[in-house]
């Protein structure tokens, strides 16, 4: 591996993506802390703090900025390393980075000046400053450019290596970006054709149901855009970090492909409680959602088998002894594996959300943020933190500042999120609404208090872990004097790619199948929405019940 060493220019491009991600999560978790405290009545009213402004920052900076910049850096590096080939174009890379960063700055300006207190889902007819929508557009377009750079790298490799099988690391990364192009189509249409002209005053009225539907066409594959990069790390890096091998390479490819096909045509499972969409199509999307449990269970099996193999390689015997042989003292391994455990709970709670009428119990209660901090908030986030412990040294050439701090970061976050998630989810079952500054709510029920306090304790631990992470990264970047001696960890497989059907790499065919599934599942939904919901909603500022006419 690594016939062609990565250039300084490539390293600089990728590490700047990480720096923006770290600035984003620093602000993001600060507001997370304020949220848990405010909800539990542990925060006095403070004139500078607006819960919903903070929550908009929290959602945008954590779920959109921290994730996207990490994903671009991790996957570009994964493709670069597994193909042993330079990135297609540095200037294309910087163009993508520049567009995304300008977009974040524009949206950030709108949120900072309280002209975009609309949360990260920006449902109309709540209206934000045009800079917010423009910023979102630039972030998306920038990510398209960054994705193009990765895909063109692959295309160039394919031309140089006809007939050769794509390494799994690259295979998974390409799936992520292809999925991203399919998904962002929905939100791009929503923002460019509905929201931007409307916020500029070019049209006065808009269609909130259509906007919701386009948003969730994007919103569900969005969660796989977050999650699949973690899968790439789990499948192709963690077995190596554990001192073993991936159990089955072909099975991993099957999981990636299934997620490519089935994660988009099921977005209506976020709209079970919506008007304007018929029950029958909600049910179809519910069934579609359950198809996704197959690749998830395949992944659970494959990863567990890989870990067991590694544990036995390290001398583990018997039924559970191998678990203790794994390198739990290595931050990269520990963080990623704790992420998988969190994801097991995230997946199970997700099945509750997906279950059609069971969703009525939990929809828009604090159960949902409880669930999503196990998935994007930990499975993905803690994996990125774990990978940063070798990626930042690799990209800066400076050794990790402190392994102990890194370990504390991983374990404290894990313990914190487990407490936080149980508090949020139990509270949700008792009816706590989400997206709500409950501490200042006149109807706060006394039976919610223990769960709100529990979430506050867990959330505070997560915040402390996040600070440890940022401290460790800052010290590594600025003060570490030791040279780094790390390589990109690339796992071998027990059952190798040679067994994978060649058809797995027929991208055009899979794209066509994905398109057909989307047309089948979304044509009736969009027809119903367009037939029943008018373009009649004037905009509203979050602070004023009078419409903007």
């Amino acid at each position, binding site marked *: 591996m690594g016939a062609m060493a990565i250039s300084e220019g490539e390293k600089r491009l990728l590490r700047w993506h990480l720096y923006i991600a770290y600035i984003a999560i620093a602000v993001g978790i600060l507001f997370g802390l304020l949220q848990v405290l405010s909800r539990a009545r542990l925060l006095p009213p403070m004139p500078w703090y607006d*819960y*919903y402004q903070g*929550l908009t920052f929290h959602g945008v900076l954590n779920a959109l900025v921290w994730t996207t910049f990490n994903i671009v850096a991790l996957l570009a590096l994964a493709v670069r390393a597994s193909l042993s080939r330079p990135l297609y174009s540095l200037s294309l890379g910087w163009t993508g980075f520049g567009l995304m960063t300008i977009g974040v700055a524009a949206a950030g300006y709108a949120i900072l000046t309280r002209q975009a*207190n609309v*949360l990260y889902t920006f*449902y109309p*007819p*709540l209206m934000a400053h045009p800079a917010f929508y423009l910023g979102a557009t630039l972030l998306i377009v920038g990510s398209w450019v960054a994705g193009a750079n990765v895909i063109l790298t692959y295309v160039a490799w394919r031309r140089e290596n006809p007939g050769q099988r794509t390494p799994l690391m690259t295979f998974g990364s390409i799936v992520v970006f292809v999925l991203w192009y399919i998904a962002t189509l929905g939100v791009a249409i929503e923002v460019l054709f509905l929201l931007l002209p409307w916020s500029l005053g070019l049209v006065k009225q808009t*269609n*909130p*149901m259509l906007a*919701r539907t386009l948003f969730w066409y994007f919103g569900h594959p969005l969660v796989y855009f977050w999650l699949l990069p973690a899968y790439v790390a789990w499948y192709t890096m963690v077995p190596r970090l554990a001192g073993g091998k991936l159990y089955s390479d072909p099975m991993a490819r099957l999981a990636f492909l299934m997620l490519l096909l089935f994660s988009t045509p099921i977005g209506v499972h976020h*709209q079970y*409680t*919506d*008007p*304007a969409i018929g029950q029958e199509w909600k049910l179809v999307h519910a069934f579609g959602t359950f198809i996704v449990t197959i690749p998830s269970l395949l992944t659970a099996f494959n990863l567990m088998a890989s870990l067991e193999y590694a544990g036995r390689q390290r001398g583990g015997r018997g039924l559970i002894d191998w678990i203790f042989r794994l390198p739990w003292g290595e931050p990269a391994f520990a963080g990623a594996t704790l992420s998988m455990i969190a994801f097991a709970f995230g997946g199970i709670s997700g099945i509750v959300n997906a279950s059609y*009428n069971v*969703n*009525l*119990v939990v*929809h*828009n*209660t604090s159960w949902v943020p409880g669930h999503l901090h196990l998935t994007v908030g930990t499975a993905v986030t803690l994996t990125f933190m774990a990978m940063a412990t070798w990626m930042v040294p690799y990209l800066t050439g400076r050794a990790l500042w402190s392994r102990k701090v890194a370990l504390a970061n991983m374990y404290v976050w894990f313990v914190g999120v487990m407490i936080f998630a149980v508090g949020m989810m139990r509270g949700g079952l*008792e*009816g706590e*609404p*989400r*997206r*709500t*500054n*409950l501490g*200042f*709510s*006149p*109807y706060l*029920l006394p039976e919610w208090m223990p769960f709100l306090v529990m979430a506050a304790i867990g959330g505070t631990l997560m915040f402390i872990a996040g600070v440890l992470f940022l401290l460790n990264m800052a010290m590594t970047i600025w003060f570490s004097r030791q040279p780094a001696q790390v390589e990109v960890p690339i796992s071998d497989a027990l059952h190798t790619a040679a067994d994978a059907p060649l058809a797995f790499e027929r991208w055009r065919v899979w794209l066509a199948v994905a398109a057909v599934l989307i047309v089948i599942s979304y044509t009736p939904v969009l027809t119903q929405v367009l037939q*029943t*919901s*008018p373009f*009649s*909603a004037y905009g*509203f*500022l*979050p*602070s*004023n*019940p*009078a*419409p903007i006419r």
Partner: protein
Amino acid sequence: MVQDPFERVAIFGAGLLMTAFFLAIVVGAFGLGIRVPTCVTDIPPFDQPAVVEVAPGQYVVNVVAQMWLFNPREIRIPAGSLVTFNLTSKDVQHGFKILNTNVNMMAVPGVVNRAQARFDQPGEYLIVCHEYCGLGHHAMSARIIVEPRAAGDQGPDPARAVASALACWAR
């Protein structure tokens, strides 16, 4: 008063023209049935009193969500009632969750949502708005009061629809 015949023609003609305009509007609106958008509380079912008993023991409740309250804020029904909720929003998106029931839906302006529940247990049911709707979102709630049936009472209470005349804020 007006001496000049031309002036008289002008005034009379203007009045006639105005009357013609009125007639045209009336014919257009009611004869041809072309209506302009109106306040949601003018449109069925939201023009009805909020709580309507449609059959013995069966109620329809027409709820309008708006920044930052539900209309009606309080719904009274006897225990054992089967209640259908029609829900819409007058401004932005809202949520509507009745605690300890399976009623959970979104209020989206321009469309009507619907859900049904039976209330057998007397007591108070909290309704919360669970979709962010602006500044006062965390204060947005309503209540359902399920009243116990009097002893020996066979059927449900006589109709006690609380007519809550809604004033569109715009007027």
